[in-house]
């Protein structure tokens, strides 16, 4: 009995990584801004959305990790095999476009978080890009993953800064479980934004590829599933503390719209230099982390789906398309931040639109594939799970389409 438990614990530690990293990176510069905005403007009221978001995240992530563990193939591989080259090609092109704008948002996060300390973006962005590039090109999968896991630990910054602003814990606890709906367009837009940004197409591809790269097998899947769920819980906890920090620091003083995440950080300043510094450090870490993962994940996914050699364990001349695409995303994604007057906000809205257009396809393809007996053998969804999965997919699609509408309105407006 004890021996079996020890075995399972050992397996758990051997599969740790993919689920955790994916879920945590979900709180990238864009996510942090959305949650800061929620807390600053509406205080503790939007907290109740976090539990449903967590559930949606778990359902979608779980299916991907299961497909990875059972088939040993990436999601783009499976889409290619089931839906053909043309479908895959268009999905990949949309993914590259959406992820490129995401990379821009995160380089902007790097720039603005360090500008609070008076360091020019013309220094920080090139250095950040170089760090990101070197890490992946010169590293191996195991070393890269270790650094990523370390980076997830830095997210504790948000928990500490959340505690330091001494928010009203009773309110926070109450509104975490009490749904409040205000019939106010801005509030509804915000809620949709929170849910819509929580599940992004790149995550599905990244998670599945990482599970495969890690060599998780169907046998180890039980432990891997726990890891995925723990990752989603941690992501939710971090989001909770970001909202609470902004609610305690900004909303309780005077509810207002914030311009960007650094604006939120400045709002924390009256509650102590450390709360402010930690919030900035968290933003820098999240941006840097996502700026690493997104180009990497994109290069992986595209190469797999279209049949080019890929993998950080390969040399440049063995996988030229992989490294070329990776480098290009970093150079363009970081480069545009240095162009004066670049319409960054529009780009971020555009990224939401592209993600939103892509996500329904990805989720539907996923759910179809995960139900194919020929591919998943005994690991297809059960009927009850399918009901949950399709409901989750439908909810996600509905909210994402709404978000696309809102973003399109903002772009034109």
């Amino acid at each position, binding site marked *: 009995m004890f021996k079996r438990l020890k075995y399972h614990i050992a397996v758990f530690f051997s599969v740790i990584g993919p689920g955790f990293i994916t879920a945590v990176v979900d709180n990238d510069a864009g996510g942090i801004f959305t949650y800061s905005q929620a807390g600053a403007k509406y205080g503790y009221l939007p907290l109740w959305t976090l539990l449903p978001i967590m559930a949606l995240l778990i359902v979608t992530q779980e299916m991907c990790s299961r497909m990875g563990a059972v088939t*040993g*193939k990436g999601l783009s591989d499976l889409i290619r*095999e089931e839906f053909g*080259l043309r479908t895959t*090609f268009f999905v990949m092109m949309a993914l590259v476009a959406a992820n490129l704008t995401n990379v821009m948002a995160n380089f902007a996060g790097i720039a603005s978080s360090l500008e609070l300390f008076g360091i020019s973006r013309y220094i920080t962005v090139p250095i950040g890009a170089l760090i990101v590039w070197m890490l992946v090109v010169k590293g191996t999968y195991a070393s890269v993953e270790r650094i990523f896991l370390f980076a997830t630990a830095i997210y504790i910054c948000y928990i500490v800064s959340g505690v330091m602003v001494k928010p009203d814990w009773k309110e926070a606890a109450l509104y975490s479980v009490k749904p409040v709906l205000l019939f106010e367009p801005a509030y509804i837009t915000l809620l949709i934004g929170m849910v819509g940004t929580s599940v992004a197409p790149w995550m599905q591809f990244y998670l599945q590829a990482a599970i495969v790269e890690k060599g998780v*097998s*169907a046998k180890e899947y039980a432990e891997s599933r726990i890891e995925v769920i723990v990752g989603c819980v941690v992501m939710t906890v971090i989001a909770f503390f970001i909202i609470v920090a902004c609610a305690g620091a900004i909303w309780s003083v005077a509810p207002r719209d914030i311009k960007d995440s650094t604006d939120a950080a400045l709002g924390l300043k009256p509650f102590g230099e450390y709360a402010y510094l930690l919030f900035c450090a968290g933003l820098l870490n999240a941006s840097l982390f996502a700026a690493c993962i997104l180009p990497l994940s994109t290069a992986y996914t595209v190469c797999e789906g279209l*049949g080019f*050699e890929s993998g950080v364990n390969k040399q440049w001349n063995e996988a030229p398309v992989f490294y070329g695409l990776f480098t290009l995303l970093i150079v363009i994604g970081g480069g545009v931040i240095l162009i004066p007057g670049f319409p960054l906000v529009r780009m971020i809205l555009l990224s939401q639109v592209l993600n939103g257009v892509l996500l329904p396809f990805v989720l539907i393809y996923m759910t179809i594939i995960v139900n194919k007996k020929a591919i998943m053998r005994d690991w297809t969804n059960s009927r009850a799970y399918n009901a949950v999965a399709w409901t989750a997919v439908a909810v996600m699609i509905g909210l994402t389409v709404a978000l696309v509408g809102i973003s399109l309105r903002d772009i034109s407006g």
Partner: protein
Amino acid sequence: MLDHLFFTELVGLKVYDLKGRKLGRVRDAAIVPLVNAFRVDRYLLGGGWAWLSVRHDQIQTISLEGIWLRDEQLTPYHRDDYMLRLERDLLDQQIIDVEGRKVVRVTDVTFQRVQVNGHDELRVQEVDIGLRSMFRRLVQGVLPRPLIRRMMMPIPVNSIRWEFCNILESDPQRRLRLNISTRALEAMHPADLADIVEELGASDREALFGSLDSEVAAEALSEIDPDIQASILESLSEEKAAEIIEEMDPDEAADVLAEMEEARSDAILEEMDDEPAHDVEELLEHSEDSAGGLMTTEYVTVPHTATVGEAVAAMKGHDYALESTNTVFLIDADERLWGAVPIARLFLGDPVVPLASLQDERLVSVPVKEQQERVIAIFDKYNLVALPVVDSSKRLIGVITADDIIAILRQN
């Protein structure tokens, strides 16, 4: 004159009967590998309510404009497991490029058009994987076929000859029906085969190991990442897994079994022959990161009084481990380690020369419980290729070889 045709061009071609009436469009084409591994045997048409099947000898001409038949006795298509259907079974799937030793994904297929008895026939010539085929497929149906051919000319070709393609099929019954041989894979270097296996999905990987010759499977398996080793063996039947493990070096076999759940590894040990099973079980007793966990029990010993001739005779009875043997160990009457002679030195002496006069002057050995880090340090310090392992009463119980040390250093 058209001498080749691509599968993407074939799909959608109109098919006409003797009177020039259109019957339908080509939906898929199939090879029957048991009969002929190259010829497109059937053309499947989607016309009205059902699919029709056209046999290769019912066709008169094939061109970019369409296909004209010379016979009208068409049969409805029914499923046939003997057919390799190109659209369904080959396109977008992974195959093994035996010559290039890698796993690739099929984008298109190139046919050669030949004349047989006055009518056209298509033969599979190459499988296309490069950018050119990708472009061709993306625009097929959007632009006219001749224009696509002109536009794609500047893009480099990337194709694999059909003889070098090894199809992946996870159903063993169907592997037989499709006449898929593993001979070309078995001829590869085990390390290359291992790289290929690591790239495959779980079910293809398992199917491949199920059909490989046990000896080849064992050699390839030794080169694979330990995590994957265990999951492959767990997917096979216990008999097959036991056969493969028997062929592996005992220390590697023990490492794989240690990765598995106990019930499963016990069942496999049960299936194995007594002698190899016994060796492996002994090794399993030792902690993985001690000298005992690193050592193998396959090595050559002779009594310390033996001569060169006797040592050579002893090795003749040890055929299985010779490629990794580089030292002969001398033991006394109580099996205690007495000395070691590098094999190269055997060539220096006449058959009657006693081994004792050729032995290393300084004999290095480690106790079975020695920590892995210490063992590595000893290898480095004394520049060893083999290190004997002894138990508490100095009896020789195993040997650690340099390749084990390299594998550990690489993992860290």
